[in-house]
């Protein structure tokens, strides 16, 4: 299966009730793309963490804003591009805390980084910030 073009697009509002839909869709897409069940579950968690951060940080819990998810499959990698039109921050501000200094928050970015190969936050998108997440496929 070789595809360089935009595979799938999912647009929802920034309401937590859509997280489950987003997770299930991501899992299905990852399975279609040939990832193993475990890898698909990892990507399901990654997208949840990324969208939760959009709701919390970018939209400050405003549940009525758009979240646009784009899924691309290339020969060597799977990409997820998460677009929103909320608050932009400096990329350096998207960072996880020290993992061994246990605190209630600050685990989302850590999980995303741990389970993907590239995490790139770009605040300069036309409509708002975008988070680009890349996972290389096994065949690499």
């Amino acid at each position, binding site marked *: 299966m070789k595809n360089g073009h935009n595979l799938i697009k999912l647009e929802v509002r920034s309401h*937590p*009730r859509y*997280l*489950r839909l987003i*997770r299930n869709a991501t899992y299905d897409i990852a399975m279609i793309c040939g990832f193993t069940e475990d890898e698909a*579950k990892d990507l399901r*968690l990654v997208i*949840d*963490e990324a969208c*939760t951060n959009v*709701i*919390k940080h970018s939209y400050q819990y405003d549940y009525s804003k758009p979240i646009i998810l784009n899924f691309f499959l290339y020969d060597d990698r799977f990409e997820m591009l998460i677009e929103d039109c909320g608050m932009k921050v400096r990329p350096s501000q998207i960072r996880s805390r020290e*993992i*061994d200094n*246990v*605190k*209630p*928050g600050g*685990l*989302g970015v*850590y*999980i995303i980084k*741990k*389970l993907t190969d590239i995490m790139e936050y770009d605040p300069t998108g036309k409509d708002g910030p975008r988070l680009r997440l890349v996972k290389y496929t096994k065949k690499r």
Partner: protein
Amino acid sequence: MEINSREENGVNVIILDGEVDISSTDLIRGKFKKLIDEKKKKIVVDLANVPYIDSSGLGLFVETMQEMGKYGGELKLAGLTDDVKKVFELTRLTNFFSIFAEEKEAIESFK
């Protein structure tokens, strides 16, 4: 998310049923808050029917554990499914919490 609870031998058991993410953490937090307000020292959370958890759920457990620590209480976890256990391992929280295979064991460990 469905939450059930009961008291057994002075231990407050919270049984969660459903996926844990920010659509359910407020509900769970409310349940914990009541017990913390009453300074309950022994809480067991049964996660056998939780197929999924994200960092907002982990954060809630850490928060609750730390609140309880202030008055000498402890939160213990039981029945983690494989997928949920993996998220605890990924974030190295398996050492932070006392984790038991069965709810029963977790309750007995408080004796």
